[in-house]
């Protein structure tokens, strides 16, 4: 037997159940510890909440985070890295100015804060230009005050416009709310951001697009494809478990990620994902919403081929794993 074939899992091994148990058992420990740690502030969801987030295939993580690695000249120069970080950071009008509406005069007054402008590296003219692009012609600037007049608008439109103006983006990349330059273990600088926008950032010439990383698995699937998303899932799940000092073999996480991504899109574990799409009627009915599945199956005159484990347990037959797979075939004569 070669060393490679030794590593192969034997035919009939119930890898799914073993993976589920292997992740689930330390997971119970984690639950208990999470309750124990109640009240400890968290920057990013870790532990059980994060694991649930991953397995549920949420559209967006609670706290999206990116690690942007840079091309050589930026990576070894802190000043340049910081400059880039500042340029990436998404700045809105709200961040550099105080926006209030004057319903009497039917105008919106935007008071720019010089100190904020400086730290964000934004010029007043820039703000003016962006505001004008959104609000139209009746915009005036006088020193640090931009006034938007809307003489014919209703009060409701003024309120709506105000809210819109607050969110007007002056510079940076959408969704990247904060940036931080971090010195990596290799001595190279990289940028860590709150908020994630892969598609835009990989266009940036100074960014090393081959190493860029986000914890938003769905976004990875959109930008880099499902294979990348599968790898990201494995990495994220493993990271969560490692952080809690739970020794789970990666291959269990890999199986989980494979199961979630095998159809080309990220599917959640549970009623709306994997378990809700099992092949057998009985298996689905045994999980949740029994009657719904039975009636749907009846209207389509579905057959249950009794392929899965659950189905066979229900009808009282041997289960097609392990010893249940072994069959004797004999041809007489």
């Amino acid at each position, binding site marked *: 037997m070669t060393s490679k074939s030794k590593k192969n899992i034997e035919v*009939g091994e119930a890898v799914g159940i073993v993976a*589920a*148990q292997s992740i689930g058992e330390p997971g119970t420990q984690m639950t208990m510890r999470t309750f124990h740690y109640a009240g400890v502030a968290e920057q990013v969801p870790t532990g059980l909440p994060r694991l649930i987030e991953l397995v549920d295939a949420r559209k967006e993580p609670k706290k999206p985070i990116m690690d942007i690695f840079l091309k050589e000249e930026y990576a070894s120069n802190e000043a340049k890295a910081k400059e880039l970080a500042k340029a990436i950071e998404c700045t809105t009008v709200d961040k550099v100015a105080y926006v209030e509406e004057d319903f009497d005069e039917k105008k919106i007054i935007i008071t720019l804060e010089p100190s904020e402008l400086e730290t964000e590296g934004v010029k007043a003219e820039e703000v003016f230009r962006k505001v004008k692009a959104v609000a139209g012609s009746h915009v005036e600037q006088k020193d640090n005050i931009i006034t938007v007049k809307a003489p014919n608008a209703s009060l409701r439109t003024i309120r709506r416009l105000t809210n819109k103006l607050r969110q007007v983006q002056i510079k940076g990349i959408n969704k990247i709310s904060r940036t931080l330059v971090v010195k990596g273990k290799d001595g190279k600088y990289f940028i860590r951001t709150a908020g994630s926008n892969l598609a835009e950032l990989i266009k940036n010439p100074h960014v090393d697009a081959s190493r860029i990383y986000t914890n938003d698995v769905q976004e990875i699937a959109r930008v880099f494809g499902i294979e990348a998303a599968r790898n990201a899932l494995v990495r994220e799940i493993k990271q969560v478990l490692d952080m809690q000092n739970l020794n789970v073999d990666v291959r269990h996480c890999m199986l989980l990620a494979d199961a979630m991504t095998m159809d080309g899109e990220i599917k959640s574990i549970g009623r709306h994902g994997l378990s809700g799409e099992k092949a057998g009627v009985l298996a689905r009915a045994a999980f949740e919403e029994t009657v719904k599945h039975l009636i749907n199956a009846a209207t389509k005159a579905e057959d249950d081929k009794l392929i899965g484990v659950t189905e066979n347990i*229900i009808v*009282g037959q*041997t*289960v097609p794993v392990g*010893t249940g797979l072994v069959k004797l075939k004999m041809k007489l004569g």
Partner: protein
Amino acid sequence: MRRKIKRKKKKKISHLGEAISFAHTSVYVNGRLVGYHENGEVLLAELKNRRRQGAISQQVNFHYRKSTDELFINTDSGRARRPYIVVENGQSRLTPALLEQLKRGEISWSSLIKLGVIEYLDAEEEEGAYVALREEDLTPEHTHLELDPVSIFGVTVSILPYPEYNSSPRITMACAMAKQSLGTYLVNFNMRNDSRAHILYYPQQPLVQTQPYRLLGFAERAAGQNFVVAITSSYGYNIGDAVVMNKNAIDRGLGRSVFYKSYETEERRYPGGQRDTFEIPPPTTTGYREERVYRFLGEDGIISPECEVQGKDVLVGKTSPPRFLEEITVFGVIEEKKRESSLVLKSGEEGVVDSVMLTDSLAGTKLVKVRVRSIKIPEVGDKFASRHGQKGVIGLLRPQEDMPFTADGIVPDLIINPHAIPSRMTIGHLLEMLGGKAACFKGNFVDATSFTGDREEEIRKIMKEYGLDEYGEEVLYDGITGKPCKAKIFIGVIYYQKLHHLVSNKMHVRSRGPVQLLTHQPTEGRSREGGLRFGEMERDCLIGYGASMLLKERLLDESDKTTLLVCEKCGSIGYHDFVKNRDRCPLCDDSRLEPIEMSYAFKLLLDEIESLGIFPRLILRDKA
């Protein structure tokens, strides 16, 4: 009372109206606003003073809440109140002179209350009190003094010896376990028919006891015995909170108890004039049991005392009228087929009939109460506990000759493991052992009242006096080899309680047995002779292991396996027509039916799916 106060208030409190209410104290009687006063604190002091003088009833309590400037007067029923000694200018009102009078019996508790030396506070008035625990702690700010430091505890804790030396979780556990201990819960147990009752054969009062223990009269209703206990390992039989007990000590009556269990039944009357009858059921009765279970019954169908009964034996034979009125038979007579409804001893139990009582029930029907007694001698698996939250089950009953012994020939009754001590921090346990040993030599009880009991030094002094190791350690000799143990071993006398978790009332096995009517699956629970559930997670384990055949055996062959006939043509479930002696499908006229093995639960599922209006078919195929 309320009227009285209101009158007083009207004199003192002017109804000033809304405008000045902010500047004045609001006064409430039993939660209802009755008026205002210029100065709440002055009023409070005056009210309290009057109460102490006896002008206002002792049962009225006052509380002034400064933050909201409100004065509460409570006179209503249902307030929990407790006594305190009144303190004035840092001086207890219970003076040595009064104490002396009290000792001589010249004055009583109630006169102290009348004198305003002792007063009862409710929860609200306590908020305004500053209570000192001991007299020497008194300062001018104090308003009250505890009668005794123990009084900060409730009844259950105050009975525990040396609780101040133990960690608090262990105290909680000790309290919980004291309530499970066997003793003499009542002295007239012989005349009662409690549904279950345990009585300890030879209860003893503890050698190390507390004042409240005596005051509350527990010494007359003891629930435990003084054991000679050694703390050492014992060939591995006391690992993990197991204990080794001396077999001979048990034979001498240590930890022996009786268990009484009462059964009752009555001759019920039914609408329509029918009623149950106590009798030996005739063999024609529906549900007639084996003949032998009726062997103890007298002519009246009732068992007599001192019969040795075992599980499933009938205590009272009884027949009931049929549940539904029978149809008239061909001969035109109504055939009365009676139902068997005897009173049966629970399966797995055994004992001796202790008493049989015949009376009338409230409804005027004949009522029988049968009390069965069984002696419970300590056996492996019975639970014992000290009063320090140190519980354990017997791991081994060792003959006295194999137990370790001291130079004086003392053999322990019980051996607990040293590992039970450090992590639980029950120093009180050790101290009680030492105290118990000292008490044995001196012939006195040791006082272990919390905070005020005999100190360790005093006990050590006694130990020295009698020439013992002052720490209670002695050389023990191994009972098997006769050689002295290498280390000195802590041995003493401590009060142990037998708890009512006895294996004999819990033991349960099943290899085969009854099944449920609906599902054909094994029943659940010890009382129904049930099996242990092979649940979802257990199922997952077998799948994970790949043990397909074992899984099928558990879930099908050993559970609710049935063989049903399935139509090859339409896939519905058919049956065998015994009249025409052929298999029949309910849908097809002429088709072959195959016997198919399946779980009865699956058959039920199919039925239930049909009830949804869905027709499930079983498509048959030869096994590949």
